[in-house]
């Protein structure tokens, strides 16, 4: 088994690492306090091509494999998670639908501008009535001639404040349950599209999630993504595809916290010696390292399976679950090792501790991931016996 990345992937990774270390890290505290990512940084990320990770080369993107994307996400995870989230949501759930389910016309219209970041993407599934129970959508789409009229609302939609292109799920046939859901590509300036308030959150500052309201929102028929009734499966596919990427972002954050914790434990002296010489502290570091490394193996394994076109429903749920749980445990230990400074908002550790928390909730809660894994286990068992 060969775990080395191809040389050009290493080059990509190196440049992203330099960019993150030299440009984003120095403004991380500024992002946290102002709640805004400096325009200059976003512009640089666009010029570097970071918004085109998932988009094929023929449409101006990088067309990276999942393994390649994960290498980049891992580097992006080593800095402010709000910045990571802007790019992660755009290149993940924000663009993947059009890349995978879009027709030629749709790809030609949307992908080149999304690859440069001129148009930012978002994914709008969740509604007040449909969180974990994602099929319980109340938003409806009714066909009127060559257009659909969409009515309803969404909430918690990442990137909504700044996005131009939304993958929206709505019910076209209420009698069919999940099979009555259809997906659409909606542009911000379509008539009837309203962006509501930006949510106030525990963390992920600089990443803006909003409510959306659709009031007789007019969507041309050619903006339907796939066929009527395919929307729920499309949404699940998009989410499944994104899971290794999310885990890779968490992996980068774990590595960052581990590195910072080792450094601090070597420098901080109590009882006349560095605290790393206390076995209790060293054991925490050992546990953080083991879990981070295990996450690394699982992440790249699931990414590799995705690239092979294998069915990864179970493994994607595993890596989403494990990645967020490990990130939370590692962040907790990092705070503990840092003591008071770990709780101080002028140092980055408490920010990671807060930002880690959302990863167990969004893109399917930990409980829902366990449900998926469990259902797959039963299915596999039945198949065998």
């Amino acid at each position, binding site marked *: 088994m060969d775990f080395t990345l191809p*040389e*050009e992937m290493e*080059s*990509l990774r190196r*440049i*992203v690492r*330099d*960019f993150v270390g030299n440009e984003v890290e120095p403004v991380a505290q500024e992002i946290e306090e102002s709640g805004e990512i400096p325009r200059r940084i976003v512009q*640089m990320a666009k*010029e*570097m*091509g*970071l918004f*085109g*990770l998932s988009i094929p*080369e023929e449409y*101006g*993107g*990088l067309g990276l494999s999942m393994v390649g994307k994960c290498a*980049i996400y891992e580097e992006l995870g080593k800095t402010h998670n709000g910045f990571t989230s802007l790019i992660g949501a755009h290149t993940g759930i924000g663009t993947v639908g059009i890349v995978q389910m879009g027709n030629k016309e749709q790809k030609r219209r949307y992908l080149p501008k999304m690859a440069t970041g001129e148009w930012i993407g978002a994914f709008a599934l969740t509604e007040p009535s449909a969180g974990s129970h994602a099929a319980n959508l109340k938003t409806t789409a009714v066909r009127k001639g060559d257009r659909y009229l969409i009515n309803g609302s969404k909430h918690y939609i990442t990137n909504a404040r700044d996005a131009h292109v939304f993958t929206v799920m709505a019910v076209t046939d209420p009698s069919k349950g999940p099979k009555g859901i259809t997906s659409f590509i909606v542009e911000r300036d379509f008539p009837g599209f309203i962006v509501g308030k930006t949510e106030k959150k525990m963390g992920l500052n600089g990443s803006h999630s909003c409510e959306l309201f659709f009031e007789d929102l007019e969507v041309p028929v050619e903006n339907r993504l796939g066929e009527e009734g395919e929307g729920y499966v499309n949404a699940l596919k998009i989410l499944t595809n994104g899971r290794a990427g999310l885990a890779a972002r968490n992996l980068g954050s774990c590595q960052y916290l581990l590195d910072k914790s080792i450094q601090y434990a070597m420098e901080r002296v109590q009882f006349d010696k560095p605290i790393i010489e206390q076995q209790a502290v060293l054991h925490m570091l050992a546990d953080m390292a083991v879990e981070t490394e295990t996450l690394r193996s699982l992440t790249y394994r699931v990414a590799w399976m995705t690239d092979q076109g294998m069915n990864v429903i179970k493994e994607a749920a595993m890596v989403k679950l494990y990645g967020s749980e490990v990130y939370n445990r590692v962040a907790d230990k990092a705070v503990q090792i840092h003591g008071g400074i770990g709780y101080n908002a002028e140092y980055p550790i408490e920010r990671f501790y807060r930002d880690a928390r959302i990863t167990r909730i969004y893109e399917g809660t930990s409980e829902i991931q366990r449900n998926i894994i469990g259902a797959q286990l039963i299915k596999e068992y039945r198949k065998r016996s």
Partner: protein
Amino acid sequence: MNILVCLKQTFDTEERITIENGKINEDGAEFVINPYDEYAVEEAIKLKEQHGGEVTVITIGPERAEQALRTAMAMGADKGVIVDLEDLGDQVDEHTIAQVLAATIREEDLDFDIILCGYMAVDDGSAQVGPRLAELLEIPHISTITKLTVEGDKVSVEKDVEGDVEYIDAKLPILVTAQQGLNDPRYPSLPGIMKAKKKPLTRLELDDLDLDEEEIAAKTEIIETFLPPKKEAGKILTGDLADQAKELVQLLRSEAKVI
């Protein structure tokens, strides 16, 4: 406009240097384009963007140095030449490098209107290669520039002279060396990196060049390589000035042993 950039791959400036058997240990080290050469690359690409033309990057170094050329190509350089002098072993100094660069430019028929170099490499710190190369090619040179404007064949530069600025007008062809402040090198774009691996690269060895080994052999010899002494806490002398001076002289004699 034909633009040549000579660059060197050096240790990442954040790398901790260790010495093993009298040599700098390269194991596991990260390498980068020498920071001053990176300014030269950026300036070359800017010139190309303004005036059109082609940027060729040249390096002398081992196989790993290709990485530095590919990075320059990812930033926008069009083609590269790498010369491997492995055969010469340690018999390489600034004289050798300048001779080999000049021969490469002549024999590969690399036309140039302007040649850009970093003013020095952060590893050896000699600041000699640029001026030496210009002498060999019999063109003028200006070192440590912080601003460059080219119009037609007219060249105007601002040159850093120990913190002051000297304004110089000159003509193409010319060689200039880059000082910090010349520009802010761009990050290579990710698509640029993917494209860079397909750009043309010429590999040369000493045998490919018409050079007399003895003539280019190093004119200097490295006698010893050692790390700078660890920084120790300073000492602040107190008391009246005459006593301080006395104590200082005594310390310079007995402790620092410099007089």
